[in-house]
């Protein structure tokens, strides 16, 4: 049994230690907002916050999340959409939207750390999040517009 805190709630998970955190979230806990894109930590669709740091949950084993605080895209919207989410919707900054929950998480972490990040910093921060529909520009603009709200 592994204990961890997910979106503010302590949970005990009965899965082997090497189970990917993403599988724990999606299958064991029913939190499907973190998406499976590659299973190799290379696309960013499954990004979550682990003790405040953005990580790919698909190649984070459960043992690594033991006694840690995990925040998923659902958790960021717990008190209503967070500023990044609001801004993405306002800018209609998605097409298929499969990559977007990972981007929400990564961008939220960026603005926590760098509230005044510029366009280049946003793009660099999202370097590990792939978008295949070509919505990059709108997403960067939406994240920049979320700055004023978060600061």
């Amino acid at each position, binding site marked *: 049994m592994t204990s961890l805190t997910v979106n503010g709630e302590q949970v005990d998970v009965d899965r082997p230690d090497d189970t990917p955190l993403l599988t724990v979230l*999606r299958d064991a806990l029913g939190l499907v907002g973190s998406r499976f894109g590659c299973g190799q930590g290379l696309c960013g669709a499954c990004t979550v916050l682990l003790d405040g740091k953005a990580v790919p949950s698909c190649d984070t084993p459960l043992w690594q999340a033991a006694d840690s605080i995990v925040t998923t895209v659902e958790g960021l919207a717990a008190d209503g959409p967070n500023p990044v989410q609001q801004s993405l919707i306002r800018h*209609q900054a998605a097409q*298929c939207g499969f990559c977007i929950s990972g981007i929400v998480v990564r961008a939220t972490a960026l603005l926590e750390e760098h509230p005044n990040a510029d366009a280049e910093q946003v793009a660099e921060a999202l370097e590990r999040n792939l978008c295949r*529909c070509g919505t990059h520009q709108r997403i960067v603009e939406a994240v920049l517009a979320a700055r004023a709200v978060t600061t």
Partner: protein
Amino acid sequence: MTTMRQQTIPAHVEANPSLGTWVTVAEGLVEVHVGKVELGQGILTALQQLAADALGLSPELVRIRTARTDSGPDQGLTAGSMSVQESAPALRYVGAAVRQLAEATDVVEVTTYVDRIAELDPETNLTGLGVVGSAGPTLVVGTDLPRLDLPDKVLGRPRFVADLRRPGLMYGRVLRPPSVAATLRWVPDGWAAPGVTLVRDGSFLGVVGDREDDVDRALATLSSAAVWDEHDTLPHDDALTDWLRSAASDLIEVGADDVPESTRTASYSKPYLAHASIAPSCAMAQWTENAESVHVWSHSQGIHRLRAAIAAALDLGPEAVSVEHAENAGCYGHNGADDAAFDATLLARAVAPRPVLLRWSRADEITWGPLSPAMTSTISARLVDGRIDGWAYEVWSQGHASRPGYAGGHPGLLATAHVAGGTPLPPAFDPLGPAFGSLRNADPLYDVGPRRITGHCVTEAPIRTSAMRSLGAFFNVFATESFVDELAADAGADPVDFRLAHLTDPRARAVVERAAAESGWGTALAESVGRGIGFARYKNLGAYCAIVAEVEAGTELRVRRLVVAADLGLVVNPDGARNQLSGGAVQATSWTTIERIRFDHRRISSNDWESYPILRFPAAPRVDVHLIDSDQLPLGAGECAQGPTAAAIANAVHAALGVRVRDLPLNSEAIVRAIEETT
């Protein structure tokens, strides 16, 4: 577009004549059932807008119901930028019929109108009504109604096929062969792994279990245990143009004029490309207890074709199979969706009546989904007094069409080639005109005098190919528009002026002029920065699109900016259209400058995001989109930008460096090679 008599019955109403197929009422909302599916392009929102205006209702009172085979209209494939073109007349007709039947003009209260719609006979034959009403108001069409699906996606709610959960759900995985022509030699007798059931049928291997981690662990051990016989069947990936030009092929001739001796000839090429959607293909299937019938949830572009293909593959009557659409990540053409649906069906049959959620791996998504074919072409033209007078275009490609049921009787589903007694997938073929596959946009819109357009559809299929966004148009426009720039240089003409001198269609001229004006065409640029233009009318029937690219060719090639001018006809949702155009241009920038499927004679080695990289955020160009105002028929938006983007980038590189790169991908390596070839 305020009033318009319905002159003819739209094709999709003719095919789906019952009122109740299109319109029902539930919970005080008018439900409009559609056969087009959400692929990430925002079509459900556009259809909501069309339906609201057609019915004379505000959009909040209209609910779009997603496609399924057991109810709602069969609107064929969601493909080819045809969804608005085909749906607008149908929804307008249905809306006019509903307003006429419900005597909408008499009602004051909207609830009365909705109640009257609820009372209409669902069996009413729409084709026999003599609908003469107007086209309805234009209140919602033409506005930027926000996407209906984005809140779920941005907030991380269940939305995608992988998020479906049903009681008793099991997870499934398939172990694909390690190479295209491999067959299973051996799996240890009594192979077992904790928590899973093995499903084996010939070379088709799968595992099903209650817990996803058990299933993934089992797949890994099964992968180590299985022994395959592999064969070298692939051509050399550095010599694809030679292979294409010498392989067996079918001849397709479009224009066959006598073409005078040319003053310039050049050859171009593109490699195989992957759809590379962010989500791997996925499906859920559930059989009845007695395994007599199955229901499938799939992100297919054509659920009715899929249904027929599954039934044919399993020797069932079509009534034994039903399919409903469920969204997945962006779909850019015929990917693994249908194959995954069949995989799920096979796995679920072994554990009936429990539902099985099947997902492909990333590697399988890239290597087993159909690829966009490698292509090559040769163009010759004669220049007389600065004008083109004679044009010959010859293109070689595997086919662009292998969707389920396309190739005479074969279901065309991947696992049908792997199960015991299965038959290999037939080669993709090329649809004939007017839209074509390999020959799509092979015939330029310019006045070029006598022309000869020839296609060779390669019938050998060492690698599986099918339709990817814009089909042959991406490559043909890259080639022809690059060549037009080469001719312009021969003529000593500016590329924009040269194009305008050969274009008579005013809508074509307008987008070229607009892109040039908005991009600052002709103004000075820094050293090693260049501008280039590309233009096409998609399929020569659809949207007009001109793009100016600005590139910086330093140590790395960087596409800094794309200026897009497009005439899409009537636009239902301008913001959505901009998103589609801009996305199409950015995706094509990735295809043009980075992407290439690699393989040796046996295996495809591009199988993850490191070996098949795509454009990332720091490299994404700025895109400015300019739409031409139009109330003409809608022409679609999703596929018109790809070809012009590729050509604009190639022409901009030439403007920046003076070198002509004719082989994609257009990366630093290709630029160096082109410089070496010219010096």
